[in-house]
């Protein structure tokens, strides 16, 4: 009759072993997502993004979509450019001015009502624009290795200075145009001074301080994608689609996910991973629908923009 207590004791021991094997902080495999409001945009490509307080501004075609996360309101301000002209990139400087690339050869300051207040011609074609403090960060459209990928300029000063340690990379056997495309830089948002930026094929980010000091962080367990695959895929799998550094300097990374997830036509990534400041993996979740941007990371929750255009939240871990 001592068999039953022995079995119970064994079950307790096994249960406790299982408890130790699964960390309590491990995230669920599929994130529970709650819609907050929207849709705020359709499926057009987001060409630029800036945050200010509780508001996120998105550049969609030639329209700035202002999303007030606190007030759950959306407004759209068309930039007053000619119908055939295009814009790329948004840069908000510390003085509050908002800039974008008009075509390839000019940066323009956009007023709150969409009017263009200032035009600065560029001497070479450019493909990227960001902001860092009071400086605009520019990327040339076509460049050769190993020149700097990004340069900083103040709108009222002509000198351009190298910004960050990111350089244009060389890819043997690949045409210069393609190497330039593979060296295009994307940057995410940050709650601290370092900003996360990355190349499209790499499973790593560069954390760039306002003075340009750069710290490269390889992301544990995230696979890079081969350049020839990236350049020929319909919906290329991108190791890093968006990144956000939270107040504790943890790095949140939105990834495309495995190819089996890519049956959907909606834009976005399917996996959200969290990494410690040194790039060590710290858990991940999968989404039931694709996510385009990490809008905010707040205590207990991550606010995202989904492929269907909704502002939604998922529980943090």
């Amino acid at each position, binding site marked *: 009759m001592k068999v039953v207590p022995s079995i119970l004791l064994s079950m307790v021991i096994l249960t406790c072993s299982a408890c130790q094997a699964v960390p309590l902080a491990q995230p669920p495999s599929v994130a529970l997502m709650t819609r907050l409001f929207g849709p705020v945009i359709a499926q057009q*490509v*987001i*060409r630029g*993004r800036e945050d200010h307080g509780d508001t996120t501004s998105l550049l969609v075609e030639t329209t700035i979509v202002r999303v007030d996360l606190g007030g759950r309101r959306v407004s759209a301000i068309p930039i007053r450019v000619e119908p055939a002209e295009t814009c*790329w990139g948004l840069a908000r400087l510390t003085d509050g001015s908002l800039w974008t690339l008009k075509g*390839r050869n000019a940066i323009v300051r956009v007023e709150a009502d969409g009017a263009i207040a200032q035009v600065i011609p560029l001497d070479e*074609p450019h*493909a*990227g624009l960001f902001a860092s403090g009071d400086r605009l960060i520019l990327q040339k*459209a*076509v460049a050769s290795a190993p020149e700097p990928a990004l340069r900083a300029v103040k709108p009222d000063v002509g000198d351009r200075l190298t910004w960050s340690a990111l350089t244009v990379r060389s890819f043997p*056997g*690949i*045409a*210069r*145009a*393609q190497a*330039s*495309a*593979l060296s*295009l*830089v*994307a940057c995410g948002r940050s709650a601290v001074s370092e900003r996360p930026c990355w190349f*499209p094929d790499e499973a790593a980010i560069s954390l760039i301080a306002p003075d340009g000091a750069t710290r490269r962080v390889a992301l544990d367990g995230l696979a890079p994608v081969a350049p*020839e*695959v*990236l*350049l*020929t*895929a*319909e*919906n*290329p799998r*991108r190791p890093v*689609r*968006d990144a956000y550094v939270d107040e504790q300097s943890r790095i949140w990374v939105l990834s495309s996910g495995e190819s089996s997830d890519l049956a959907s036509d909606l*834009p976005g990534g399917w996996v959200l991973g969290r990494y410690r400041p040194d790039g060590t993996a710290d858990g991940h979740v999968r989404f039931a629908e694709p996510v*385009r*941007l990490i809008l905010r990371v707040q205590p207990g929750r991550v606010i995202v923009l989904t492929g269907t255009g909704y502002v939604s939240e998922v529980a943090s871990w």
Partner: protein
Amino acid sequence: MVKKVLFAALVLAGLVANPSPALAGCTTTLADCYGRAARIDSFWYRWAAGIDCELDYVDCVRQKLIGS
């Protein structure tokens, strides 16, 4: 320049020989553009045409590579 443009066109032909559908479209367009540029007699016009091919290609792939 002619050799460089032709080499680039050859490399691109290799890349699009077994394409997944579609960013391949940008690559095919680039290869065609390089091919047309290579047939221009004037050095400077040929060089400028090659640059235009590269700029159009970067525009073509940018939204897929770094757009959100």
